[in-house]
């Protein structure tokens, strides 16, 4: 177990490095000069432009800038954004917001998704199952912007239950509607995965044994069926948390949530290398951690899996 974790952690290093490198150079390829962009539509003062670039080390050769960035990164310094704020400030401002949004969406998709999937799986072929199938397919096929606008229109403009946009990005109650939009798609997938998995396992031998032993139905379903059916769902959820954290730019935009997606969108538009890299670095760490946890969860869910 310990060795497995250690090996996985070691493998993260090249992935981490590769991502940082790729992002650094991709941002650089984007057209336009981020420093000149600070002047907006006005004429750029060349003397000030040069002085600014010199102060930020942007007049160095690209490879030197890259090495400097890497060096700082390993010392835990994410560098400085174009507006003079440390990138770490932006990260610590945006990630808590997105973490809340993502966890809320995550909770919705687990609770609702698994419940719907369980009942659909148990009643395979019945009306509830067919209804679920249609509903989930519909959710999957509606583009997120459209779904966002529909929800916003119904729940705030028509019904007036919530404010149309998020006033306080840290308020869980206000994040509920965006979380539903964000999680609805994954909800559909979780429900379908659970359903399929349940439908498969319900015919398994251990189920017959459990019923034959005279265990109460609740226990049969809870401990035996559900636990054994969760592996594909957990695989999906593991990568999904990372994706949710990645910040749905569209969802955050529609609901005015100032999270990771918002910051990334702006940083990319302004070609802010340090900010983009900083956010992506944290995202990659989250993703790698999530996939490690998923692998460890396998062992919990299925005692047959052992990590040497």
């Amino acid at each position, binding site marked *: 177990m310990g060795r497995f974790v250690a090996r996985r952690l070691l*493998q993260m290093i*090249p*992935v981490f490095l*590769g*991502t940082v490198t*790729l*992002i650094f150079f*991709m*941002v650089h*390829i*984007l*057209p336009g000069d981020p420093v000149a962009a600070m002047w907006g539509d006005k004429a750029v003062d060349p003397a000030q432009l040069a002085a600014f670039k010199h102060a930020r080390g942007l007049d160095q050769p690209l490879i030197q800038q890259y090495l400097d960035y890497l060096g700082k990164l390993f010392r835990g310094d994410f560098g400085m954004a174009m507006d003079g704020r440390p990138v770490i400030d932006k990260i610590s401002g945006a990630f808590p917001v997105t973490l809340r949004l993502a966890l809320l969406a995550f909770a919705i998709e687990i609770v609702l998704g698994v419940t719907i999937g369980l009942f659909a799986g148990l009643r395979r072929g019945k009306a509830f199952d067919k209804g679920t199938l249609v509903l989930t*397919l*519909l959710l*999957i*096929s*509606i*583009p*997120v*912007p*459209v779904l966002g*606008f529909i929800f916003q*229109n119904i729940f705030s403009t028509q019904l007036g239950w919530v404010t149309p946009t998020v006033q306080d990005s840290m308020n869980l109650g206000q994040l509920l509607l965006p979380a539903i939009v*964000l999680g609805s*798609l*994954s909800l*559909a*997938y979780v429900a379908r*995965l659970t359903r*399929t998995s349940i*439908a*498969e396992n319900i015919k398994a031998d251990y189920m017959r044994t459990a019923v034959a032993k005279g265990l109460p139905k609740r226990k049969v379903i809870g401990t035996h069926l559900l636990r054994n059916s969760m*592996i*594909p769902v957990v*695989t*999906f959820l593991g*990568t*999904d948390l*990372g*994706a949710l954290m*990645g*910040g*749905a*730019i*569209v*969802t955050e935009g529609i609901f005015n949530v100032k999270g990771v*997606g918002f910051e*990334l*969108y702006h940083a*990319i538009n302004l070609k802010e290398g340090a900010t*983009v890299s900083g956010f*992506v670095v944290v*995202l*990659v760490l989250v*993703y*790698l951690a999530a996939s490690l946890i998923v692998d460890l969860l396998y062992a919990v869910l299925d005692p047959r899996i052992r990590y040497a």
Partner: protein
Amino acid sequence: MPDLTDTKTEIPAQRAAEVPEAKPEKARSLGLDAWHDLRRRPIFVISALLIVLLIVIAIAPGLFTSVDPRAGDLRTHFLTKPNYGHLFQPDWFGYDGQGRSIYARVIYGARASVVVGICVTAGVTVLGGITGMIAGYFGGWVDTIVSRVTDIFFGIPLLLGALVVLNAFTSRTIWSVVFALVALGWTQMTRVMRGSVITVKQADYVTAAKALGAGTTRIMVKHILPNAIAPVIVVATIALGGYIATEATLSFLGIGLQDPTISWGIDINSAQKVIRTAPFALFFPAGMLSITVLAFIMLGDAVRDALDPKLR
């Protein structure tokens, strides 16, 4: 492929790919068995018919409407409401904010979506299939490198990736969008193929072929490919719908297709400016997009069910 972090629309379709990878199914041929089974499924029949219809529309939109989708008359047709009785007439779905027939635009917009969907899927399957085959078959350091590269791709935000790739083109056409989506999406298929190949290569017939002295290429093409391709096909058909939705999302973000190309994504984007006064301008392109995505996902679903013996 969770690297397309921003388009929720696409990810799950592709992430569903993780499932066959997680518990690789027994390699079995895509025989008549599955075909017979499929023909009896109403979902398959309906979705297949829909897709055929969409392809016909994409190839020959002129058969369905005689109106120029770019011609608009603001004086008489600015956001004119739909006339639902006028089947297949220009005013069937109403007129958009430029006074253009929404029906004609919906018909002509099919081409972009269908081409993007099919071409991206083809590109991703070929590229991902080859890399996945190599990684899975050879294993060792080759596998390590390929696997880590697919991990790295997760980290690239779609917006950044798309901007970088699309900026390489002077004008953004259907083909540049296809190129961008393939470039950003192929690693997902690599994972699926790799997982599948790893299971298949341990089969007795592969060992037997090796013992008989068959060359590497021959083993890969003749023995492994036919037996490992099933999960890839399943994932590809489901992902196809996702790619179509991604094109729309890119156009929504303003970095996708542009005039004079006609696409549902562009129309959804411009309909948002008039959503309060003319919801129908959003409804029809969004509806057609959803139906198309739905048709492809249902097809993929049916194919998967047919190929999975446990679900019979």
